[in-house]
């Protein structure tokens, strides 16, 4: 599967797909689209990335953040130290490091996405209860936002569906692509 065209194209297409999927998510209320379709498009973005690069690379670039750090040396000024940290975590992050560098990994697992989605969908319904109305009574903002339209608790619900669908597909694909 690893043709140079696919690999290069996917690098630029994946973020594009993601933005598009979010657009589809918000568009859904007035035009064809919605959380389910958006979630599928978003997950397809990652699925193609997995096909092109392998799941380890996908996880590394999109689902985990490795933060490198090191204790401040005696001869470094605080400004110098800050600069080093920022550079180590941004444009120099792929450079080899000496063993005294430590790192923390913040990882988003697909299961977390699923859980968060389910949680979001349920809580969006609870807002109705808090206002003394039946469960899942919708509530809408008065103002309209360009491109997205007006926001309300059903939008939150749809976002929950989006995250859940995406998490589910990713969970399957990541598990299956592992040897």
């Amino acid at each position, binding site marked *: 599967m690893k043709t140079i065209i696919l690999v290069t194209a996917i690098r630029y297409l994946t973020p594009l797909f993601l933005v598009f999927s979010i657009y589809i998510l918000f568009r859904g209320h*007035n035009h*064809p689209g919605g*959380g389910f379709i958006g979630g599928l498009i978003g997950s*397809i973005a990652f699925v193609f990335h997995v096909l092109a690069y392998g799941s380890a690379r996908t996880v590394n670039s999109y689902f985990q953040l490795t933060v490198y750090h090191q204790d401040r040396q005696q001869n470094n000024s605080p400004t110098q130290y800050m600069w080093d940290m920022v550079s180590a975590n941004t444009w120099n992050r792929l450079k080899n490091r000496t063993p005294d560098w430590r790192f923390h990994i913040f990882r988003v697992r697909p299961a977390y996405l699923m*859980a968060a989605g389910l949680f979001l969908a349920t809580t969006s319904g609870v807002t109705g209860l808090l206002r003394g109305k039946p469960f*899942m009574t919708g509530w809408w903002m008065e103002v309209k936002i360009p491109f997205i339209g007006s926001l309300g608790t059903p939008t939150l619900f*749809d976002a929950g569906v989006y995250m859940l669908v995406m998490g589910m597909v990713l969970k*399957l694909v990541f598990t299956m692509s592992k040897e």
Partner: protein
Amino acid sequence: MLYAIVIGIITATVAPLLHRTMGRFVVIPMALLPLLLFIYFCTFMPEVVGGHAVTQQHVWVPEVGINLQFRLDGLSLIFALLITFFGTLVMYYASGYLDGDPLLGNFYLYLTLFMTAMLGLVMSDNIFSLFIFWELTSISSYLLIGYKQAEKDSRVSAWQALLVTGLGGLALLGGLILLSISAGSYTFSGLLTQRADVLQHAFYVPAVVLTLIGCFTKSAQFPFHFWLPNAMAAPTPVSAYLHSVTMVKAGIYLIARLSPVLAGPDIWHYTLMTVGGITATLGAVLALQHTDLKAILAYTTISALGLMVTMIGIGTDPAMKAMLVFMTAHALYKGTLFLVTGCIDHCTGTRELSKLYRLGSHMKYSGLAASLAALSMAGVIPFIGFIGKELLYEASLSSYVLLAVTMLSGITFVAVAIVFGYRVFWRKGEDKTQLQHHAGFPLYFPPLVLAIGGLALGLLVHLVPTPLLQQGMRAILANPNAELKLSLWHGFTPVLGLSVLTLLLGYAVYKSLTVLHYRASTLKPLYRYGPNTLYHMMFEGFLHHAKAFILWLQDGYLRNYVMYIMFFFCGLLYFILWRDTPGIDFTNRIYQLHEIRLYELVVFFLVIAALIFLLGTRSRLTSIVVMGLVGYSAALFYILFGAPDVAATQLLIETLTVVIFVLLLHKLPAFTYLSHQFQKYKFIAISALFGILMTYVMLLVQQQAMSTSELKEYFGKTSYLEAHGRNIVNVILVDFRGLDTLGEITVLAVAALGIFSLLRLNPERGGKQ
């Protein structure tokens, strides 16, 4: 009264924590709670004795009539006092009995929970809150009986108790629902006022049968008596508390509570008398055949419970009087004897009658308690047991059969009392049994209190218990003028003669006990056909057949699962179509064929061709691609018919399916036909069946939708105005039918977790990675 329950539950839940922090001193708060509750219930005494019931009401689920309605009348108060008083002593006793046990905290949790549930049960006026507490006692008693988790015996017995009483609970629920339907009320007081309706109603007999099954399982009546002796696997404080004083009395309590409502027709009285009589006889006979002290007590308890049920069955004033007094006396002496047995077990390490001699010299106080209790059990003046026995004889004088049953039980009680009060502790002539350790204060003090209580109640009978028992009797008879007068000495009556005769016969039975025990061993083969064996046969047979059925149904082949689901679905659909819906009128729909457009035909033939090709292919990759083709064609159909949302979803799903298949493809073995071609035709037939049925349903829906449905208009109108969205499909999904979507995505999440665990399961490498 609600606070009593709440405090009980809170104390129960913190018991393990307290045990961790306070160590063995956890007994202080745990025993203090029932003591305080006892005092609390004593404060109700003047009001209840004055003839007023104390009521409290808390709304819980008013829609279905489940409320926490409490009502404390004479009967409830008697039980509440017994429960809390025994609770205090048993809690204290347990601290000695289970001293140093690492799970003592859990033990107190279960026991306190049980006590609270029991209190709730006797105070409930609402029948459903009674049922909830009833089940809670079943569950907590399961935990208590199975307390020694390491022993198989204990676990099996706990299961048995839970299953038998749980089954009874189910029957009870049915009975209570029928009662509430026939009376139109959810409270016992309401049932009582609607008594005439209940008796007339067609549900009367089923309600009686179901309710009594519930009570009989709980009170260990024949043929459900077998769980009680097995439940002796529990630690002795549990046996003393649950199986002589509280839990088994719950059934008696409920029968007594329902007696004013349901009594009258013959079925009620004769069922109770028959079952109670059989149980009393059976318990008495079996008690004489055992040599394990706890088993003897268990069977005499069954016998006593049978007597109480018989008394309620007789239903006359003297019978109810006898039931109440006997119940109180029985609780006092049986509790004592159980606690003493626990003490013996703890100190000598055995409960076998043949190994226990002359314990009195080492265990003076326990021996004293046992002797006092035994005198009460045997019905010797001036103990309360004497009054109870006199009343029992008096109540059953009306019928020779009942009198014989009561006499038989009485004789057994005397024999057993001599065993406990004399044979084990004081009889001379044999070698002394050596103690492993001496009985501590917590082990002999509680039984002594109970035994002295039996004596005190007997001596002060006209002062202390009479007014309360009178109120209890009025509650059972629903007659506010019923009189209950007790006195220790009745004069020289025929009943006194019977009492003396019982004592003499009991002594004779005691003398011939060794012979009886010897004879009993020849009866062993008979027990193979008892209800206990039946229970085990049913239990194991159920497990065996369930296993066989599951193995047959879930053979591990996905195709078969799918096939079963399809078959079931088709069958259900076919049944509904056949039963409920009119046929399709095709005649005036032929014209629709003219409206078919060319590109629809093209897509149609594309799908058909793809399917035919699919059936002949021998490569997985080809079949996946062809399936993708079919899916995309379906998406095209959706677009043609103006459903862009569905089409988009379909397209994306097809894409993902192909991609996921490709990911898995290289892991699969080479494609071969392992089974006969016939299998393929079978699956084709099922698919065709499914397709045809769905097509039919679609046509039917189309035919109906034109005329009847207003949904389209409704959604079209309200979707923008009320739900702020122009895309009706999406608005339906996230707003109008949002709850459905929530359910669906929950299913999706659960399914994803299931698939994940299946994928991670690696059976060839021996289980999970």
